[in-house]
C-alpha cells in the first residue's frame, strides 16, 4: 500500500517537474481560462441579467473547459516522450500509474482554478468571501469528480486519432453530472442560502468522487494492457 503511494508520488512528481519546465500546457490553460471569462463578460448585458443568476454557470463552464484542456496532457506526455512502454515494462503497479496521473492532473487543474476564481470574482464582482470555505469545498469535490473519470478516459483516447476531440465527447455525460451538482451548490452558496441546503449537494459530490475514483482506479489497468 505504501509502495503504491510511493510509486504514484514518483509519477506525479515527474509529471509536475516536466510541466514546470516546459510550461506550455499550464500557460495555455491559464490564458484560455482568462479568455473564457472575458468572453462571458462581454457576452452579457450587465443591465439585463443579475450576475448572481449567471455566476455559477459561468464559473463552472470555465472550470470545465480548463479541466478538459488539462486532461489530455497526462498521457500525451508519455506518448511524446516514448515512455509509456517503459512504464509498463517496469514493476510500476498500473493503479499507481493512474493515481500518479490523477494527482498530477489535479494539481494542474487546481492551479488553473486558483487563478480562475480570483479572476472570476474580479470580473463579475461576486462576493465570495463569506462563503469561501464551502465554495472551495464544492470546487475541490467537483474537480476530483471530473478529473478522476477524465484521467481514465484520457488513457484510452490518447491512442486514437482525434484525441482532443474524442475526449470531450466521451467524457461529456460524466462531466455533466458533477457539474450539475456543483452549479446547484454554488448557486445556493452565492445566494446566501443556509449551509444545510448545500450539504446535500456536497454529499452527492463526495459520493460521486468516492465511487468514480474507485471505479476508475479498478478499470485503469485494462486501458493499458489486456
Amino acid at each position, binding site marked *: 500500500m505504501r509502495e503504491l503511494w510511493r*510509486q504514484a508520488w*514518483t509519477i506525479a512528481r*515527474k509529471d509536475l*517537474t*516536466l510541466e514546470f*519546465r*516546459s510550461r506550455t500546457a499550464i500557460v495555455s490553460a491559464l490564458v484560455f481560462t482568462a479568455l473564457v471569462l472575458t468572453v462571458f463578460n462581454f457576452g452579457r448585458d450587465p443591465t439585463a441579467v443579475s450576475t448572481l443568476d449567471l455566476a455559477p454557470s459561468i464559473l463552472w463552464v470555465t472550470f470545465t473547459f480548463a479541466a478538459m484542456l488539462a486532461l489530455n496532457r497526462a498521457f500525451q506526455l508519455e506518448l*511524446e*516522450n*516514448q*515512455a509509456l*512502454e*517503459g*512504464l*509498463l*515494462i*517496469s*514493476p*510500476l503497479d498500473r493503479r499507481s500509474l493512474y493515481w500518479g496521473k490523477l494527482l498530477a492532473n489535479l494539481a494542474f487543474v487546481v492551479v488553473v482554478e486558483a487563478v480562475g476564481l480570483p479572476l472570476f470574482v474580479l470580473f463579475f464582482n461576486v462576493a465570495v468571501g463569506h462563503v469561501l470555505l464551502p465554495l472551495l469545498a464544492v470546487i475541490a469535490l467537483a474537480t476530483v469528480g471530473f478529473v478522476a473519470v477524465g484521467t481514465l478516459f484520457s488513457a484510452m483516447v490518447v491512442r486514437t486519432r482525434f484525441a482532443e476531440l474524442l475526449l470531450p465527447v466521451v467524457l461529456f455525460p460524466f462531466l455533466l453530472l458533477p457539474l450539475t451538482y456543483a452549479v446547484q451548490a454554488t448557486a445556493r452558496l452565492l445566494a446566501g442560502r443556509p449551509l444545510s441546503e448545500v450539504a446535500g449537494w456536497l454529499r452527492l459530490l463526495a459520493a460521486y468522487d468516492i465511487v468514480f475514483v474507485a471505479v476508475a482506479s479498478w478499470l485503469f489497468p485494462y486501458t493499458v*494492457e*489486456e
Partner: protein
Amino acid sequence: MVALDDVSFSLTAGQTLAIFGPNGAGKTTLLKVLAGLIRPQAGSARVAGGRSAIGWIGHQSHLYGHLSVRENLLFWASLYGVPRAARGARATDVLARLSLTDRAEQPAWSLSRGLVQRAAIAKALIHDPQVLLLDEPFTGLDLAAAGELRSLLGALRGAGRVVVLATHNVDEGAELATDVAFQVRGRFVQYEPRGGRGPAEIADAYRRAVGETGGGRHA
C-alpha cells in the same frame, strides 16, 4: 497473421541468446512477450524475479526530454525499487560505465541519437537487472560505442546475467552469444549453442537458414 509460432526455450544464468532474423520475423514481439508487455494467446513466458529483474533496450528511448540524463536515471531507479540511499551512487556509476558523466546534467532532448541510445542503455542497467532484453541495441551507435556495448554485454554474461539480444544484423551479436537462434516469420528455424563458431560461420548458417525458408517480408 501469426507473429509468433511455436517458440519454446529456457535460459539460465550466464547464457546470452542472440536471435537473428529479418525485419518482420517477430523478434520484437518475442521480446515484448518476455517483458510481459504482450500476453500470448497460447503458452506463457516467465522471467525469474518478475518485472524488477528485467532491463529493456528497445526502439523507444524511455527518456523524458525535459529531464536531465541523471534525473531520468533517478526516476527509473525509483520505479524499479532501488533504495533511495543507493540511487545517486548507482546513477553515477552507470553514467561512468557508459561515458555519459559529462552529459549527466543535460536535458535528454539535447542529446544526439547515439548518446540517447547510450542513455537508454544506462537506464536499462540502473537497477542491476538479472535479465537484459535488447531489441536492435546497436542502432545509432558509432564504432567505439558499439565496441563498448559489446564489452559491457560480455561483462554481464560473466557476471551471470541472462541476455537476450535480437537483431537483423548477424555481425553485431554473433560473438557475444552462447546460444543462437534464427527466427523467420515467427518460428525458430534453428536454435542451437554457438559452439566455437565465429561470426562468419554464423552468418553463413543464417543465410542458409533464411534462404531455405524463403526469408521474411524483405531481407
